[in-house]
């Protein structure tokens, strides 16, 4: 019993000592990596979605090709090509920018399909109503279709945002000391992988929960504003 008590004390000690370093890694790297790549990915996705909806065949084909490549290959492989592969062509990236580029390109491909589907889901009558009051195609898009498409795309984009939070753990494989990498280091030093990784999981859970809370708030704010 005494031995057990010692072990419990040791684990509690390790967990409380490691909680803030791991959380700090999360706040310093996981959160910025998530936010930066999500915003850049969204901007990229928006233009890719417009390109996919464009009547111009060449633009359409380029966008389609991009989505095909980045949806059809594993994110981990994309990260490795960028970080470990490109140096052999003389292009060397630091870990963090390499992660940002890889996640952005990957998220851009997925989110573009979400945005495209949202735009296509707005009924034809909305376009016709916009045209009937003399709007051009781009005015109709900007003033009538996009505002409604944003509402439609919020739930799937929210999901993809939360999965991005967790996907950033792959940045550990290219030496970015984000949340998971920090956990690995501590687990290796303390020989308590079970408890440390449970702690890591718990911190990810806190992040995702807070983010889904904001997602729900946002959805409620935009509710009711889409044509049926």
């Amino acid at each position, binding site marked *: 019993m005494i031995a057990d008590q010692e072990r419990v004390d040791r684990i509690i000690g390790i967990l409380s000592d490691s909680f803030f370093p791991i959380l700090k890694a999360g706040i310093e790297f996981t959160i910025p990596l998530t936010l930066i790549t999500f915003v850049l990915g969204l901007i990229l996705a928006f233009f890719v979605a417009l390109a996919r909806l464009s009547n111009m065949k060449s633009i359409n084909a380029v966008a389609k090709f991009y989505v095909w490549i980045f949806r059809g290959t594993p994110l981990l492989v994309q990260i490795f090509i960028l970080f470990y592969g490109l140096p052999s062509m003389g292009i060397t990236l630091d870990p963090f920018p390499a992660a940002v580029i890889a996640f952005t390109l990957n998220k851009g491909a997925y989110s573009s399909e979400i945005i495209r589907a949202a735009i296509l889901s707005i009924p034809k*009558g*909305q376009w*016709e*109503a*916009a*045209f*009937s*009051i*003399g*709007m*051009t*195609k781009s*005015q109709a898009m900007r*003033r*009538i279709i996009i*505002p*409604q498409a944003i*509402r439609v795309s919020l739930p799937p984009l929210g999901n993809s945002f939360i999965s991005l939070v967790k996907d950033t753990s792959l940045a550990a494989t290219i030496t970015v000391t984000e949340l998971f990498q920090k956990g690995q280091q501590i687990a290796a030093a303390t020989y308590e992988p079970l408890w440390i990784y449970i702690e890591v999981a718990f911190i990810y859970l806190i992040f995702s929960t807070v983010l889904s809370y904001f997602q729900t708030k946002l959805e409620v704010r935009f509710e*009711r*504003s*889409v*044509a*049926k």
Partner: protein
Amino acid sequence: MIHINNLHKSFGQLEVLKGIDLTIPTGKTAVIIGPSGSGKTTLLRCLNLLEVPNQGSIKLGDQSINFDQNHKMKSKELVSFRKNTGMVFQSYNLFPHLTALENVMEGQTTVLKRSKADAEKKAKALLDKVGLSDRADMYPHQLSGGQQQRVGIARAMAMDPKVLLFDEPTSALDPELVGEVLKVMKDLSKENMTMVIVTHEMNFAKEVADQVIFMDQGVIIEKGTPEEVFENTQNQRTLQFLNKVASRS
């Protein structure tokens, strides 16, 4: 004045309009009736180029436009022609992310580049005209069908169109809400707004129309005053249609 000359429209192999000739004088109300599939809605949609005809011409005021199926129309031409027409849809098609007032303001500010203050003033006056000044800040989903359709009429009016087009404006409404929409349309007709109306409301047509047009299978079978078409027609197909409609109601 609207002058339609030899208008043809096909969807693939299917010819929906087979040469329509029609003149609607300024300030008059024309009502188009006919069985479903007769092409009446397509004709209406051709008048504001939601469908681009394959052949023929439309003259609206001083703007004339010729159609040729081998020559794709530029979107600039489409937009400039459309600005002269207003459309009221069967399913209202209000913008759900905007309030009633904003729905009526949107085209004014975005298309006509009116100032927000001017647009709001005009929108308020129009909502008042259709009896909805107390609903200005509501969103479409908070309004009844009849109220939504009246906002739709105000939205079309806000652009100062030379002609208002109505595509079965009461067909999607509960029966008890039809009256309020027809009343607004009657008022407009009395004020000499030029209107082209596709409808199944025969009593309304009798009362309001200056000109009744009966269409079937892509051609105009008969046109004339309400008395000529409803009371004194000699045409077998017109009679058949009117009897069918009468026996239903």
